[in-house]
């Protein structure tokens, strides 16, 4: 007697799954973010130098530099920056799909240390005297300017009071961004306006005791003003970054190459499906369903994590497919063994499932341990590989073990498969007499 309810349940699950995959898979694949090697973009490698003499390059310092860089990249609107600390004193920044590379470079490596100096280059006030995160763009005579807020208006009053007393034209407050030892206002002032290194040099005619200061230019464009504001708000970098190299890269593997690879991937998966159907018959069909679910789920999880797909990631994905297929094969081989030993389909399914579970469990956990170590100790692409592998193992375990078991279980328990070992790829002649 066949219990039709379970078979109906099976088809409902498959239909639901198919509907879900069919209706969302395009959106999911469109959202996948491709890494530098697949999409192209821009990469800079910096050597970190102490900003001041005697500053030690500690891990904390590197980490705070990285978080300052992250804030700055947000300004660029790049959603998937990859910043990695490499070795003791290197920071690699990878930006996939950046359009204006020069802007990106400038924004990244500028130390953004604002200083207020006299015409003799004597520092009077620095970024530390500004309120954090309070810079904004305002308009003055229809010109965009950047307004910063001061922590202590009194201090500013004293400074302006001092400068005001100097004879013209030395009564100027010079505002510098990233003043470097050896820079001289007097030299810079001789240069044409667009080559001057300082930002502006307003003359001071009265004591200013307000708590905000306007940095009015050289006439800023709105964009420039916005960038300066963001830089000031993101905070100055605690270190100096020297560019070791920067590369604008086209996709290493090219657009065509990626298309081909995807096609090749589908051909490979298609072959696997055919093999499973041919060799394992009915369970093979279950494997095709769960493998499809695996591939779909891995893409969803991947998007959800906001991860970037790179070639090492694809390698891990392939390994994941292999392990998911392997889990199916282990289970079905085990069930076939049990059927051949003369057990009924029902008890073969149960025994095969139970016995294959420890096998798959130990094999997966061992690989998971390896992946975990790669994640903990690895850098850049090794880490990327590990993340993808860990995700793949977990998802493949869920789909290939639980998914397969539930779906096949519905059929086995419906008794529709009873006395039909042929559906499992077992010939009657192979079955031992009990």
């Amino acid at each position, binding site marked *: 007697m066949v219990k039709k309810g379970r078979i109906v349940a099976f088809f409902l699950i498959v239909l639901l799954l198919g509907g879900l995959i069919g209706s969302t898979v395009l959106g999911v694949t469109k959202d996948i973010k491709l890494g530098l090697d697949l999409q192209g973009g821009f990469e800079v490698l910096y050597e970190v130098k102490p900003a001041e003499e005697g500053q030690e390059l500690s891990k904390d310092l590197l980490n705070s530099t990285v978080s300052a860089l992250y804030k700055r990249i947000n300004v660029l609107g790049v959603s998937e920056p990859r910043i990695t600390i490499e070795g003791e004193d290197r920071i690699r920044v990878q930006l996939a799909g950046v359009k204006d590379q020069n802007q990106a470079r400038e924004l990244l490596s500028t130390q953004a240390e604002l200083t207020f100096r006299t015409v003799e280059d004597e520092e009077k006030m620095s970024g530390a005297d500004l309120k954090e995160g309070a810079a904004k763009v305002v308009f003055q005579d229809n010109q965009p300017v950047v307004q910063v807020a001061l922590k202590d208006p009194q201090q500013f009053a004293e400074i302006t009071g001092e400068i005001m007393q100097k004879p013209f034209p030395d009564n100027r407050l010079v505002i510098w961004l990233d003043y470097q030892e050896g820079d001289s206002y007097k030299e810079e002032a001789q240069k044409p306006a667009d080559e001057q290194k300082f930002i502006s040099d307003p003359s001071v005619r009265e004591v200013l005791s307000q708590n905000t200061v306007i940095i009015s230019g050289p006439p800023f464009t709105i964009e420039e003003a916005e960038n300066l504001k963001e830089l000031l708000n993101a905070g100055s970098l605690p270190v100096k970054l020297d560019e070791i190299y920067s590369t604008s890269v086209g996709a290493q593997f090219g657009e065509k190459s990626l298309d081909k690879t995807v096609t090749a991937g589908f051909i490979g998966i298609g072959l696997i499906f055919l093999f499973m159907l041919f060799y394992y018959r009915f369970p093979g069909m279950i494997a095709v369903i769960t493998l499809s679910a695996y591939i779909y789920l891995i893409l969803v999880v991947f998007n959800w994590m906001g991860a970037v797909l790179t070639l090492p990631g694809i390698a891990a994905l392939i390994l994941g497919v292999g392990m998911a297929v392997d889990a199916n*094969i282990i289970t079905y081989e085990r069930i076939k063994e049990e059927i051949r030993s003369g057990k009924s389909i029902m008890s073969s399914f149960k025994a095969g499932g139970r016995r294959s579970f420890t096998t798959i469990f130990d094999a997966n956990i061992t690989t998971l341990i390896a992946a975990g170590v790669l994640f903990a100790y690895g850098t850049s692409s090794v880490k990327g590989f590990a993340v993808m592998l860990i995700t793949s193992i977990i998802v493949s375990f869920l789909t290939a073990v639980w998914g397969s078991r539930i779906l096949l279980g519905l059929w086995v328990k419906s008794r529709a498969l009873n006395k039909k070992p042929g559906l499992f790829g077992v010939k009657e002649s192979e079955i031992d007499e009990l």
Partner: protein
Amino acid sequence: MSSKIRNIDFDFVKHRNKFFMISLALIVLGGLVLAIFGLNLGIDFSSGSRVDITSEQKLTTEEVSSELDSLGYQPESITLAGGGDMAVAAFKDELEKEEISELKDHFTELYGAEPNVSTVSPDVAVDLAKNAFIAVAIASLGIIIYVAIRFEWLQGLAAIVALFHDAFFIIAVFSLLQIEVNITFIAAVLTIVGYSINDTIVTFDRIRENMKFEKKIKDFEDIARVVNKSLVQTLARSINTVLTVVFAAAALTIFGGEAIRPFAIALLIGLVAGTYSSLFIASQIWAVWKGKQLKKKKFTTTPNEA
């Protein structure tokens, strides 16, 4: 097919010394190949030069390639950047001063913009390779510990031997075929490491199960019998699994793009090596070690019992 596999009459353990010799010979050969040919290091791993060629009009890789060719230069790779009006040609060797000026003159005249030549340092890729190696070494320790808890530590050790066997094999093949070694090569080796472990553990799991059924394991003969039985029982699975992953790797090799081919070939070779080591090396090594361990125990425990 399955019934044939099931009743296969092949003694995996008896011929172990042949397998060991084959692997040993291959490893020695691989070592020689590595020593003689070395690895064909891509630009990631060797200090080289990179030339950024800018132009007013859109560039194509073919165009830049033929221009460089006419000057007698063979770049490692050409990638387009900056929306197609810039091409990056990477050279494996550092360019000489005269070469740089020749290139600069040629392209300045051709495109009206002076190309930018910079030196690439291999430090980062070398660091990455070192890092990958250390990470795999630490992971090996982790695997031995886990296997020691769930199975026994000798099996963990044997699994690691198989792992390094497979990893070395790919490196040797890369040297032999002079396939370019770049960062993706590391990904390929890591993939094989993962596959090798998975494959070996599945066989060891069957050995563990069959050992439980054995009433007494006295000497090497008993171990050999169990190992043989386990290998025959898991043979169908071993073959089918490697077949399916080989389908995927072969499809990538044949239909995938040019750039991904070295990677796909590395996978293909590694997968076959991984299966070979699980079938013919890992369990046999363990059997030999286990046999010695039993012998030792016998000698040390007998006097106590007497």
